């Protein structure tokens, strides 16, 4: 009878528990610090978020890399395609001190945070030649004067316009307004004059950045309340409440909705990313897409905002040399060109914008121009907090119909951005 063996049962229970704990402990301490030479036989892990065709393209590039480097096997770890989840998945590995993934994809806003935490390897030892990349994305991967991440692809946000409705592209921000009004008057099928992202999310920051430089503004968290920034934000606020070329509904729009408005032929102007070019569009829109930096106002320069993905190496990896080889391969001109042709990810190297690419997708000529203007978001280790402050700032300004309320919301937002960007915690 089982009930008459209590002692043995207890022993079994204790043993099982101990075994479970031991397994857990072992799993937690799988980090290794010895390093493996680049030419030794080894397997490295590459974490990325690519799904569908993007994921397939990455896999194809990796297969070619493995063929060229038979000693290195690359294990692809596909993490979430949701950026918040992706970030926390990466961070779980870093906090646990894991040596994998050895190399990973990183949004342009993460490297500063990772570098500050000591989670990514400084690339100084590899002596990377950064001059061959667009300087704006290089800056996004630099922290305290050192390079921590390599530009992989570069998504510049800019101004889309309908070439059939707007015969000559606008030269100034004021012309964007007058052109939009004229187009709305001429074509009753238009629902608005301009569409942009004003929902409370990261895109509100990039759409603002797109027209910040044209007004002479600069998004420095320590000093947001500058005449240039105010002028840029006032233009967007006026678009909703004064010239009314944008509907109040923009306060709920992200890049997907903005793209839908443009591709459906509801708006002559839209602030968005290059992916719009490759989307199915209404017959009236097809073949009539222009893509330019936002035109400069007095004292400004043409504007674009930087989005994109970078590649970085785990600080705890034992395979730094092999990881670097993979990064070099993925960021080489032919591989970047192939990726742009296959899935439309804009290369981070000017030299990868080849005639072959243009013949497949002529709009990449515009993308290249925009990339020379693309302004990066603030490089700050506390960027996640700074970003949510900025999102709150823009969202409350867009929701304030009166200029006074908008100005008050702006001042309050600028103050919290400043204090969070300068935060020196840990005491």
């Amino acid at each position, binding site marked *: *009878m*089982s*009930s*008459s*063996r*209590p*002692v043995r*049962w*207890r022993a*079994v*229970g*204790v043993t*099982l*528990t101990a075994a*479970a704990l031991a397994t857990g402990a072992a799993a937690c301490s799988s980090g290794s610090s010895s390093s493996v030479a680049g030419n030794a036989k080894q397997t490295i892990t590459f974490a990325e978020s690519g799904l569908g065709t993007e994921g397939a393209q990455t896999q194809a590039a990796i297969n070619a890399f493995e063929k060229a480097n038979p000693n290195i096997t690359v294990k692809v770890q596909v993490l979430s395609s949701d950026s*918040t989840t992706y970030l*926390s998945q990466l*961070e779980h590995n*870093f*906090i646990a001190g894991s040596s994998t993934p050895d190399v990973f994809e990183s949004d342009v806003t993460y490297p500063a*945070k990772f570098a*500050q*935490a*000591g*989670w990514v390897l400084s690339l100084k030892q590899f002596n990377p030649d950064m001059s061959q990349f667009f300087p704006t994305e290089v800056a996004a991967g630099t922290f305290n004067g050192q390079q921590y991440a390599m530009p992989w692809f570069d998504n510049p946000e800019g101004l889309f316009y309908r070439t059939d409705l707007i015969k000559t592209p606008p030269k100034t921000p004021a012309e964007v307004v007058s052109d939009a009004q004229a187009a709305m008057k001429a074509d009753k099928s238009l*629902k608005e004059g301009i569409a942009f992202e*004003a*929902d*409370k*999310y990261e895109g509100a920051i990039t759409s603002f950045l797109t027209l910040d430089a044209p007004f002479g503004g600069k998004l420095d968290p320590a000093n947001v309340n500058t005449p240039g920034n105010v002028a840029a934000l006032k233009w967007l606020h006026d678009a909703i409440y004064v010239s009314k070329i944008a*509907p*109040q*509904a923009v*306060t*709920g729009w992200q890049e997907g909705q903005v793209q839908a408005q443009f591709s459906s032929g509801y708006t002559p102007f839209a602030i968005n990313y290059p992916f719009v070019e490759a989307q199915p569009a209404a017959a009236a829109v097809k073949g009539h897409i222009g893509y330019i930096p936002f035109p400069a106002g007095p004292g400004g320069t043409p504007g674009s905002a930087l989005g994109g993905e970078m590649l970085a190496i785990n600080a705890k990896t034992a395979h730094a040399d092999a990881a670097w080889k993979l990064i070099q391969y993925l960021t080489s001109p032919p591989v970047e060109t192939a990726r742009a042709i296959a899935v439309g990810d804009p290369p981070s190297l000017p030299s990868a914008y080849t005639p072959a690419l243009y013949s497949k997708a002529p709009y990449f000529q515009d993308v290249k121009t925009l990339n020379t203007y693309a302004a990066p978001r603030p490089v700050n*280790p*506390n*960027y*996640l*907090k700074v970003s*949510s402050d900025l*999102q*709150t*700032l823009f*969202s*409350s300004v*867009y*929701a304030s*119909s009166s200029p006074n309320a908008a100005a008050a*919301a702006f001042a309050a*937002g600028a103050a919290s951005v400043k204090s969070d960007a300068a935060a020196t*915690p*840990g*005491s």
Partner: protein
Amino acid sequence: MAADTKTEANGRPAHAGRPGRPTPVGHARERGDRRLGYALVTPVIVLLLLITAYPLIYNIWNSFHFDNLSFGGLPHNFVGWKNYTTMFKSSEWVSALERTLVFTVVTVVFDMVVGLGLALMMHRPFRGRGFLRAAILVPWAVPTVVSAMLWKTMFDPSAGFVDYILAAFHPAWSSIAWLGANVWRSWIAIFIADSWKNIPFVAIILLAGLQVIPNDIYEAAKIDGASWWQSFTRVTLPMLRPALSVALIFRTLQALLVFDVIYIMTRGGPGNSTETLSFLNYQTFIVNTDFGAGGAQSLVLVVLALAVSFVYVRAFRPQVS
């Protein structure tokens, strides 16, 4: 080992309930059973402790330390009550607390009143009552994520049902942006979405409560000449007390911890005007990865919820007459 052998040598049984030996008394056998019981539940208890007690204690520990992933390289220093004092002093937290309390009071009162009305209505016999009772459960059965998404679409200024209806009444009421464009309109939309989902819950609980009130009490009241209102306040409400307390506790805690409907519909916007305590906590914990401050916020929220439940449980304690 030597001691064991000695005990055996002394002729005293080392283990009373050993197999193969006749069990001397029922007492020892019972003890053996109990031990087996403990042994069997031990793995589960250990597992539960690992996944519930450990994170809770770790969270308390966190709330007294600096632990922010944005500064992952810095040591997790002990900071005393700093996370708490910063929170109590931050205007963002204080406004979130005020919003949460107002939202809780307004939605709970509204849901209880309307829910009670629906329950009274469904309690009366009429044709199609069974169908109505089943149908009213549907909003409650829909996950909040889905219902919030649904309402977000309904409030869409160009494709939404709400816009369609309003435009049918008056052309000037078309294309109104509800979410993210205006503080009051955002709150109204959230309130409607939240009530649509939660009123049925209150109604069903109260309906169950109504059904156990014996009919003869109403008859007795009628014979005594009680009006409808008198029998409602003197019979229905007191007899409904247990059901009311259950509905009230559940609704209050849900409203106090409201997160999903806000997250889906407004993300706390415009600005942070629809940020509740839970949303702020998510923002601090998950988005800003500040586990110290986030830990403090979540613990205060837990204490708040416990305090409310405690008050309710005391207030609704069955009275011994």
